[in-house]
């Protein structure tokens, strides 16, 4: 059964049809990629799924329920976590605190208990730490645990952002260009982690990525979009071979002439 189903999704900003009639379904345990040239509408699809934008038309179903019209803050509780293309971390906090912020949906205490720091709050806090330490160990972030985000190199921040999404404990994780700006080695790490997320954590991964090497290596299926419209869907190999996709990336002869 598919975990995420997107049907005829569209969003228009004034005259710009950023996404226009995109449908796809991601199965439980699958690694699914969306590819396409710059400005194709990939990030916008992510923003629609995480409900930062409301769609002009179409439906989003997750885990068997129609979630169209939910609020962005409902996503984490449903089990949808995401990263951002341009890294949106909490810059003035430490790596540890950033990850702990990912545990927000699991909190039981209210603010009065927090102010009094009752023993129950401490117990809960200890549990959060344990979960977060697992993520730190998984992503090998030990060296950065107590460093503030501000001073960290770009590559580390990208990984912290993945960690924060994992700390949520999601069913589905949306990765917006997880490898952009990373070195070859770091990209390899990301590939392994994605494999592990699927295999060991039972996660479903939906990602946007320009690096076709990474896509072919980790993805089961790929959706190609251009100008907000779907072009092709299939295995990485099939999609790469698709003439429409090649045209979209390279430009059709007529467009080149213009």
């Amino acid at each position, binding site marked *: 059964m598919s975990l995420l189903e997107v049907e005829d999704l569209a969003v228009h900003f004034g005259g710009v049809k950023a996404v226009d009639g995109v449908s796809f379904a991601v199965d439980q345990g699958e690694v699914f990629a969306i590819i396409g040239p710059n400005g194709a509408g990939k990030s916008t699809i992510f923003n629609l799924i995480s409900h930062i934008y409301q769609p002009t038309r179409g439906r989003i179903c997750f885990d068997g329920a129609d979630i169209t019209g939910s609020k962005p803050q409902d996503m984490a509780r449903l089990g949808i976590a995401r990263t951002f293309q341009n890294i949106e971390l909490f810059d003035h906090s430490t790596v540890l605190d950033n990850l702990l912020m990912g545990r*927000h949906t699991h909190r039981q205490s209210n603010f009065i208990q927090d102010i009094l720091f009752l023993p129950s709050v401490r117990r809960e806090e200890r549990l959060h730490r344990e979960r977060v330490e697992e993520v730190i160990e998984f992503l090998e972030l030990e060296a950065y645990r107590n460093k503030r985000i501000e001073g960290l190199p770009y590559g580390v921040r990208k990984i912290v952002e993945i960690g924060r999404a994992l700390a949520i404990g999601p069913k589905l994780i949306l990765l917006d260009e997880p490898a952009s700006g990373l070195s070859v080695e770091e990209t390899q790490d990301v590939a392994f982690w994605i494999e592990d997320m699927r295999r060991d954590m039972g996660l479903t991964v939906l990602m946007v990525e320009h690096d076709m090497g990474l896509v072919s290596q980790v993805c089961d299926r790929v959706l190609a979009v251009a100008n907000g419209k779907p072009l092709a869907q299939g295995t990485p190999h099939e999609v790469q071979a698709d003439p429409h996709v090649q045209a979209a990336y390279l430009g059709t002869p007529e467009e080149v002439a213009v």
Partner: protein
Amino acid sequence: MRVVFKTSYDRDIDLHEHGLDRGKMLGLVGLMILLPFLVNDYYLAEAANTLIWALAGMGLMIAVGHTGQVSLGHAAFLAIGAYTDAALMNAGVPFLVAFPLAGLLTGLFGAVIAIPAVRMSGIYLAIATLAVFVIVEELILLLEPITGGVSGIAAPSITLFGISFDRYGELHNFYWLILAVVILVTWGYANLMRSPTGRSFLAVRDSEVSARAMGINVTRTRALAFGLSSGVTGLAGALMGHYIGFFNYELFSVFISINLLLVVTIGGLGFIQGAFLGAVLITGMPQVIAILRDGLNASVGVDLGSIPGLDTVLFSVILILFIIFEPTGLYGRWLKIRTWFELFPLARRDMFRRHKTYLKTERMK
């Protein structure tokens, strides 16, 4: 350089990582408790005033420093706290009820204001709070039966369990009362900042989209932060009322709001300690100026007292210098100095280099 081996998560969760830090804090608190035996009444009253400002500063710090909500109208909350407390006590309600109620009502008022205001981004909220301030000021005048209008209101002397806490009669007791309130609030504040609620404040401050993606309800979080912020400020207002004894709306001018902002910015935004450092500075400055003034008058014969508005302009210049040269405030400067010594001789100049950031618009065309 100190290296701490952590043996359990509890070490991280505790308020102080090291026993040494805890000892220092206890020492400081002990000193504050013993203060009435160490200084004369003039300085004790000044210390009480400083503590009240620190309390108000902590209130504003929750909003500005920890949630990123700039308020230019916090004097309004001081006023609401002071008037509520005084009016309730004048109606015969005991301090033990009137005081918490003053904080609670101010907090609720703040939260209610914040709910529509949170939809506004940074600068708009600042302006809205300024508007609320002007409106509250006018309301105080309009509600004359309760507030005494232009002529003002007296904050009755406090008696608890038969013991007098009168501002003039029993200054020691009054000071200890304030100290107790400040310690309690500081403790609660510190607890808040190590728990999920405090983290959600920081999340909302640093990235709203991300906070939402973490499942944080940004509107509710901001309203809560603003409510707590105004509540604490309301408590400070109530104490300020007792400290002054008799006051009218003029006590809570827009300059008080600005001074409060001064406290948190110069003290160090985002640090509880900053509120205290800022309060020391803002209550100590007039003393220093007065001493300098007398000194200059006696030695050189220059009469600074004849220049009106000198205090304000000095404050302003200090503020400008801080924003330009040390935006992390006194506490930030102190942290840097401490790190420098701890790492000596390994510290490098560029370790503390500020990260250049470029403003990107939040606006889309």
